[in-house]
């Protein structure tokens, strides 16, 4: 069974350059508002369908100014989300994500907090499963026997991210515009995944492109390419399955466009390494992952991703 699973990976939100009143020239959609991106994973390692809750912790360090010796601020993003993967039939399914964002930035002893409903996203998927070839043996006349899965499958996803999180224009002035619970835009999501699930080893890969819309403030976060590769194995006992995994993930961001012009130092990229595990007991799947950046160049190096951590509990449908 199995076969298709979608990548789980930790998060990525590097971003968010923070700036204060003084400097607001860099921003990106990494922050809070994009914790639904593909590099965070859309589902569980092993099983296609579930409903669950996930918590993501991310920390960043950002330069509040334009100079090498400008003061740094620390950002902490807590994301609580309800997520689900719901089947429609044996070829189609939907993933959805409803996040609540709680963002804090600490600068020169002062804390700023922003929280609220984030941007809801949903993706419709078509799953193409590959089956083992039947032997062309004349003696095998039982054409009704079920096709045997090869373990390989492809997924094609088409989705949308809605501006349910509030984009506050005032913040683009006072605070770094990346410090937002939502982008204020309708974004398109295009995904392609390849999964292999064998007896002992599974591989999940996923690539997603986010076409960002312009919000009502004529502000458009940069388009984004997210990718992830995870490899997992399975240890089974009578009562549970333990599935440790390790993987790489990353994001590449285009520049932000405002009033029809590209803003300098608002593009960037990051590559992350993750380890984690899932534990399946009966219908419950418990997951944990830890992510560290391997290489990053975010927004003119004004923002540095420090680490990410996520835990989730899913109930298999």
């Amino acid at each position, binding site marked *: 069974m199995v076969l298709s699973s979608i990548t789980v990976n930790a998060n990525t939100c590097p971003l968010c350059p923070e700036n*204060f*009143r*003084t*400097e*607001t*020239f860099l921003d990106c959609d990494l922050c809070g508002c994009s914790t639904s991106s593909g590099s965070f994973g859309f589902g569980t390692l092993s099983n296609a369908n579930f409903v669950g809750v996930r918590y993501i912790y991310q920390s960043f360090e950002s330069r*509040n*100014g*334009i*100079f*090498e*010796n*400008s003061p740094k601020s620390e950002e902490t993003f807590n994301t609580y989300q309800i997520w689900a993967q719901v089947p*429609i*039939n044996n070829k*189609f399914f939907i993933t959805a994500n409803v996040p609540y964002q709680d963002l804090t930035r600490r600068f020169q002893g002062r804390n700023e907090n922003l929280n609220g409903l984030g941007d809801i996203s949903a993706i*419709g998927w078509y799953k193409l499963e590959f089956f083992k070839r039947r032997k062309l043996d004349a003696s095998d006349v039982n054409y009704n026997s079920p096709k045997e899965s090869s373990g390989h499958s492809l997924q094609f996803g*088409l*989705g*949308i991210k809605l501006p349910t999180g509030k984009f506050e*224009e005032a913040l*683009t*002035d006072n605070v770094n515009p990346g410090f937002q619970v939502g982008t204020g*835009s*309708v*974004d*398109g999501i295009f995904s392609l995944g390849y999964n292999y699930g064998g007896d002992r080893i599974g591989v999940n890969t996923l690539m997603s492109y986010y*076409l960002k*819309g*312009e919000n009502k403030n*004529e502000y458009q976060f940069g388009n984004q390419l997210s990718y992830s590769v995870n490899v997992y194995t399975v240890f089974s006992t009578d009562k549970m399955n333990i599935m440790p995994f390790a993987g790489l993930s990353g994001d590449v961001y285009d520049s932000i466009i*405002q*009033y*029809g*012009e590209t*803003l*300098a*130092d608002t593009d960037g990229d990051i590559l992350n390494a993750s380890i984690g595990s899932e534990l399946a007991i009966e219908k419950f799947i418990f997951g944990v992952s830890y992510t560290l950046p391997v290489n990053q160049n975010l927004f003119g190096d004004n923002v540095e991703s420090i680490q990410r951590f996520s835990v989730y509990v899913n109930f298999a449908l």
Partner: protein
Amino acid sequence: MKLIKYTFALALCALISSCSSDDDNNNEDLTGQTGSVVLKFDNAVGDQDFIFGTTYNKSNNESFQLSTLKYIISNVRVKDSEGNTFMFPVEDNAFIINEEDGNNAGEIWVVLDNIDAANYTEITFGIGIDQDRFALGAEGQGDFLDMATDEGMMWSWAAGYKFVRFDGTFSTTSLTDEPLNIHMGSVGTSLDNYKEVTLSLPNTVLVRESKTPEIHIVADISKVFDGVTSVNFADGYDQVHTDAQKTPVIASNVQSMFMVHHVHND
């Protein structure tokens, strides 16, 4: 199956409609509208924010630190995308940029009000006071003369304004913490060191009734000594006052120290 097709079709429609760009503000009528612009002057040394008392290295194994850093900006004007120039009213168009006046981010703000609403792509300003303004006489300087006097930016009326004033100390391979004073200006009407700088803006500055864009200008102080021409304290550039040879060199170096780092339209 139909449900799925409809779902996808709907999603696709939403995408296409949401991602089309609508440049609907091209025919905006700006007639009669005015707005403000903030010039944020930010003194630096290379890629470091300038800080008083910090020792900075320069060429020739020399170093310096400053306790006073001031310069005069005047004749600020902006050019829009159609080539029209808006000159800020001349009588109010002279400013002293004093590092001591910086906010906690080290920025010295100059707020220009009543600028014609337009899309500006270029800014020009002078460093110091031009001969036309000086020719207006002491009476014609308005409040600026008193301000400059209070700030120590005047020699005397006859000699005129100090365009830049850098006070501090310097060290060379053989000297340590000797006084450094760079007081460059025109000298009456006999020596004209007024220079202008024109900078293109990295993004269009949209001046509107409801928007106050900011232009963040970085002044790299290291260029004063290592700009168009590298000068050495050991060669007499530790004391620059009214000298007809040295002041034009400093004036050209100062002219080269400005750049627009970015603009904000929010």
